């Protein structure tokens, strides 16, 4: 399987199964036509051959044809699948390695698009106790078997509203590391409203990564991210976010925004964050239902594609001028990226990854919290509900028809199962708008890589 496309004067060919990516001239691009395997290619290339000879001359067309044949021989074009069949061993014990701790089901903002129902996830507003947090850490240590690197994300609601418990959990986890041969990596996701100097100091000493929520321009941010008094949050959070980032020397953080139908020109929000001096930026599409009015729809895709393209052109320009920044969705590690098992199995929700509510209930991920049918246990009783767990574990890019036939599957790994469930009531049926955006981002990211090589 291959995918070929043109962007900004560059022809790119992706050999899906090997992960090879090629920049090709117009002759090679046209010779390939719509072929998807080497037999197709020989037929289609011969059909296109004479017309190309008439334009470019026989010598050049012959050369391009031979070069394409060489790539096929070297398994860099129309290569066979990297495995015959992929099916996780459901008889082996699942290994948990990552937890999202809902430290607090309450929030000091009232963001319109909040998937967590402004913090409460459809339930009552509540705080995690230190005991629940410690039992979650115990469970992670126990269920992670021989895994050394474990991740804990302090999430909410807003985790700064229950910060003393965050500290207790960190201290407890660190106390277990040596004896259990584990390495905890902590992340804190915060809206920054309650950041004080003390908290910044603690976070920067303790958290391996910090995710700081801000949507971009003041108008964009304040349209969605409002304080309890109804005022926008931008003017309060921005200086606090800047202070935290400066105090950690700009290392290991993301400013993280969400774009919606109300700011389809989101490239301006990304660039605004870059203009503010942030070097690690992630601005991502909202996932919302049609009733919200700000959900992203099929008819918005052309505009959103245009925005990713505009952003890519500016991104490369800034990089060349020494003013570059990292945009999370344009970062693709072509050489040292994840292995095929990771690319096939995706986020690991429900078996490698789980979310814990303030009450200690366990869900496959933070997006499922509050949906009782997906509850898979409690930190005091352990993980049960093998049916749910196995259904998540058994779902991968080979079990989803849309993914099997998708050229971007090894970059995307199948998308978000929670989104698939929300839109299609089927974790094996991906959310189509998300798929289209993902494919566009990968195309643009590969073009950026091609530019870096030039």
């Amino acid at each position, binding site marked *: 399987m291959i995918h070929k496309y043109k962007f900004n004067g560059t022809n790119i060919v992706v050999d899906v199964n090997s992960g090879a990516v090629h920049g090709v001239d117009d002759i090679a691009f046209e010779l390939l036509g719509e072929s998807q395997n080497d037999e197709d290619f020989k037929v289609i290339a011969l059909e296109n051959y004479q017309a190309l000879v008439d334009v470019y001359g026989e010598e050049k067309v012959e050369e391009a044809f031979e070069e394409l044949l060489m790539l096929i021989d070297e398994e860099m074009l129309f290569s066979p699948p990297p495995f015959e069949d992929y099916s996780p061993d459901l008889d082996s014990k699942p290994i948990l390695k990552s937890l999202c701790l809902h430290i607090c089901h309450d929030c000091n903002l009232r963001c319109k698009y909040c998937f967590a129902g402004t913090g409460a996830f459809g339930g009552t507003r509540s705080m995690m106790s230190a005991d629940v947090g410690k039992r979650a850490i115990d469970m992670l240590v126990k269920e992670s078997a021989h895994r050394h690197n474990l991740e804990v994300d302090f999430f909410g609601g807003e985790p700064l509203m229950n910060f003393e418990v965050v500290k207790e959990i960190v201290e407890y986890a660190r106390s277990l590391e040596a004896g259990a041969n584990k390495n905890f990596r902590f992340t804190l996701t915060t809206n920054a409203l309650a950041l004080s100097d003390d908290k910044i100091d603690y976070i920067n000493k303790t958290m391996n990564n910090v*995710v700081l929520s801000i949507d971009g321009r003041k108008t964009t941010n304040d349209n969605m991210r409002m304080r309890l008094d109804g005022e926008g949050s931008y003017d309060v959070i921005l200086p606090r976010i800047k202070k935290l980032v400066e105090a950690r020397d700009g290392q290991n953080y993301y400013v993280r925004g969400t774009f919606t139908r109300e700011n389809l020109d989101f490239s301006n929000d990304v660039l605004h964050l870059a203009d503010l001096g942030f070097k690690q930026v992630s601005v991502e599409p909202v996932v919302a239902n049609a009733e919200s009015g700000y959900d992203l729809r099929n008819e918005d895709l052309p505009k959103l594609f245009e925005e990713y393209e505009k952003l890519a052109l500016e991104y490369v320009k800034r990089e060349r001028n020494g003013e570059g920044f990292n945009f999370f969705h344009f970062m693709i590690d*072509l050489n040292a*990226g*994840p292995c095929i098992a990771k690319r096939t199995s995706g986020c690991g929700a429900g078996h490698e990854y789980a979310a814990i509510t303030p009450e200690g209930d366990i869900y496959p991920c933070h997006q499922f919290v509050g949906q009782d049918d997906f509850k898979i246990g409690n930190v005091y009783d352990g993980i049960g509900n093998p049916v749910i767990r196995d259904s998540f574990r058994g779902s991968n890019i080979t079990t989803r028809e849309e993914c099997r036939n998708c050229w971007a599957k090894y970059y995307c790994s199948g998308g978000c199962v929670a989104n698939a469930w929300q839109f299609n009531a089927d974790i094996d049926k991906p959310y189509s708008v998300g798929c289209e955006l993902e494919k566009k981002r990968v195309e643009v990211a590969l073009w950026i890589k091609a530019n870096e090589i030039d």
Partner: protein
Amino acid sequence: MKHIKTISKPVLKDTKSIGCGECQASCQSACKTSCTVANQSCEKK
């Protein structure tokens, strides 16, 4: 080659034997919704 410039060599086949699971959960990095994995690094490389 005159007509083709390879941007990335084949990378997938050589990783069949890894699968150690020590890498970051893709959802934990920043996104929490849109789990691109290709930007993550392998812990063994």
